[in-house]
């Protein structure tokens, strides 16, 4: 198992390298000059040129990329061109907020979506199933910014019980969490439902019922556990979406998160912030994928055995070859 984890972490390195190369190349070929953007329209060509020199923007592509990679090895993500501060500090400040919010949203989604999915599966075509499906569809198809604004209008302006924006305490989390979760809840509910529907028709479920187990045990222990694999995949995906893609919610609720920060950085051609931010998000994605894979093994003993077997067979092969 540890072996597997180690291998996966090693395998993430070329992926992350690929991400840096891709982002770096795309930014290199994008029009728009950070030096001109910082100094504005009133700067002369010489001043812009001097700043380009200072920021190292005149270096050839390969030199820039190599010095960037060198910085990465030292844990240096470069500087934020606009504030002149280390890009790492800026990204980490935002990352904390984003992770808290994404974490809260995903927990909330799970708490709502999995029970909803189970209920609509075991009561297929009942009223509750239809209602859940409709709500899930709505959640999926509603534009993010519209839902966020409607939440603000209802809870802050009309009822006056929740603060409209910012993130300064528990109360402030409620609306953004709902806003970010809407899509996730819809996705997880639908996946739980369809996966459960598949499982509860299996023979082993019938067997469990015949054994006389209570309905609760049958559903939660036998059915849910087996239906969970695709659900966990969706949860993993939704979490990464919440980390990098909550831009609209961050903007409407004035939350200093990573997604909004990255979009602004792209607009300002703040290269090193974009590179660092994307790298951090890629890193989180790899980590989440790893955790999801490990959870598979935890839930499904067959997958766990695959890990063991592959390790064993490799050892065997090694012995034979050696």
């Amino acid at each position, binding site marked *: 198992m540890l072996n597997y984890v180690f291998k996966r972490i090693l395998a993430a390195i070329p992926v992350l390298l690929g991400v840096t190369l891709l982002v770096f190349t795309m930014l290199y070929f994008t029009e728009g000059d950070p030096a001109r953007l910082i100094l504005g329209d009133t700067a002369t060509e010489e001043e812009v040129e001097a700043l380009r020199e200072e920021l190292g923007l005149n270096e050839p592509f390969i030199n820039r990329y190599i010095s960037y990679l060198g910085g990465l090895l030292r844990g240096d993500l470069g500087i934020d061109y606009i504030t002149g501060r280390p890009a790492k500090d800026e990204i980490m400040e935002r990352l904390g907020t984003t992770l808290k919010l994404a974490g809260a949203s995903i927990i909330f989604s799970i708490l709502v979506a999995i029970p909803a999915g189970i209920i609509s599966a075991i009561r297929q075509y009942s009223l509750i199933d239809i209602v859940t499906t409709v709500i899930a569809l709505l959640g999926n198809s509603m534009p993010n910014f519209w839902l966020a604004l409607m939440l603000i209008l209802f809870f802050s302006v009309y009822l006056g019980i929740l603060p409209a924006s910012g993130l300064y305490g528990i109360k402030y989390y409620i609306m953004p969490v709902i806003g970010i979760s809407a899509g996730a809840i819809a996705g997880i509910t639908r996946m739980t439902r369809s996966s459960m529907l598949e499982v509860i028709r299996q023979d082993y479920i019938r067997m469990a019922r015949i054994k006389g187990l209570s309905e609760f045990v049958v559903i939660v222990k036998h059915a849910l556990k087996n239906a969970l694999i695709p659900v966990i995949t969706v949860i993993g995906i939704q979490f990464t979406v919440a980390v990098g893609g909550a831009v609209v919610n961050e903007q*409407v609720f004035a939350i200093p998160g990573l997604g909004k920060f990255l979009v602004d950085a792209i607009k300002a051609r703040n290269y090193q912030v974009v590179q660092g931010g994307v790298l951090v998000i890629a890193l989180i994605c790899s980590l989440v994928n790893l955790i999801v894979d490990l959870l598979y093994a935890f839930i499904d003993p067959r997958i766990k055995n695959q890990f063991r077997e592959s390790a064993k067979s490799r050892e065997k092969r090694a012995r034979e070859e050696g």
Partner: protein
Amino acid sequence: MPKKFIVLVLLIGMALSIAACTANVTPSGKNDLKFAIDQEPASLDPYMHTKQQGFTVGTLIFETLIKKDKNGEFVPWLAKEWEFVDDTTIIFKLRDDVTFHDGSKFTAEDAVYSLTLGATSSFSKTVFSSIDPENTKVIDEYTFEIKLLNPYAPLFEALASFRGAMLCKAARESMGEAEYGRAPVGTGPMKFVKWVSGDRIELEAYEGYWGEKLPFEKATARIIVESSSRSIELETGGVDIAMELAFSDWERIDNNPDTVLISGESQSITFILLNNSMKPLDDIRVRQALAHAIDMEALVNIAFQGNAVVADSYYIPSILGHKPVGPMEYNLEKAKSLLEEAGYPDGFEIDFYTYEHPIHSVVAEVLQSMWGAIGVKVNIVVVDLATLTELNNAGKVSTSHMSPAVAIADPDAALMIWPTWRTISIRHNDQHVQDLLDAGRATYDEEERAKIYGELQDYLFSKTYSIPVAFPKAAFGTRNYIEGLEFSPSLVPDMTSVRFK
């Protein structure tokens, strides 16, 4: 039962009426000021950025040598008195009781440091480049001399504006440029506490402030980029003041009894940029034909939803020397015959550059149809702002709609797009324009100065190097218990004037 019911109704009525009464006064014990700005400034160092949001926060932290009073007179502030030795030499005497937030004394050393920085920094030199950084020098602890490279009439306007803030030399040198901009040290009534990136900037009252203390001990500038969120925060009382309200929110803020809309004409101007070095725009007849083909009244009403005035010249009427010269008469016949004269009887094709912006993109569409009427086919090229900025400064933009900020309320600053050294795509390359600008800068006598700028506006109009469009209005909103805060055409209201009712 009915009795109980009546008592209940009375109680609710009382509660409501108390609520109604208290709605008009400041919440008791209010000790802090929260205001929402629409963008995060890159720096608070006034010589390291040009963003109104940074200057607005800066009005609480920094102070200037002089101020401009309600009658437009320059009055002493950190400087007690000043004296012109000759056209290019001014001696300033400073107050001796002013300290910085770190406790150190404000001296002539700091003033000279600030102004020479202003003269050399690429962000501020548009206003201060006439100051001679070599020969502006300290005379004694509280006296210094400004030496000008050439006579510079806008100097006092610049010194009295938020652009001329006094920095702490020792702090800035020891902290470094970038850090000082993120944790500034000034002489103002509020000192910097912390800056949570992307979220807020916190200030608190400076105990050792030399002047009158403000009625609040804490101030927080919240960064709320989304305009509807900003106005909702104001309506729900989350902030006391919200800057830069979107046109669509004006009416609601104005009608709400809890909030007050403070609007006015900003000192900026929007114009249609024509690239005079590009064919066919290098032909004056083509440029005039394009101007004659615009129904300016209609364009402005559509694009600005009635919240702008049609520009009658190249800067706003409240700035010295404004002369109404336009707009060009809407006359399709004339436009067509001018095009024919220029050799384009069937019109031509041209690119109009714009980016995703609620006003600029509407202007592009309206122009497409208006110029289409004289056979000019407009291709709207939508790029992002970064790309547009680069193309524009490389001289590659053929036509576009621009709204440059005007740094200070002076004709020289208001005409900042016209010097020949500018890299934006106007590229008129007309020395006569530059000569008049230089003459205006160097003339102290207001009447004479106004005459020079009058001539310049006539000349620009006759050459139609660009087409002025509108003087847009702007607004911010406050809760109804805020008073004293006035609209500022520069969109940087003096936050130290905030009082609670």
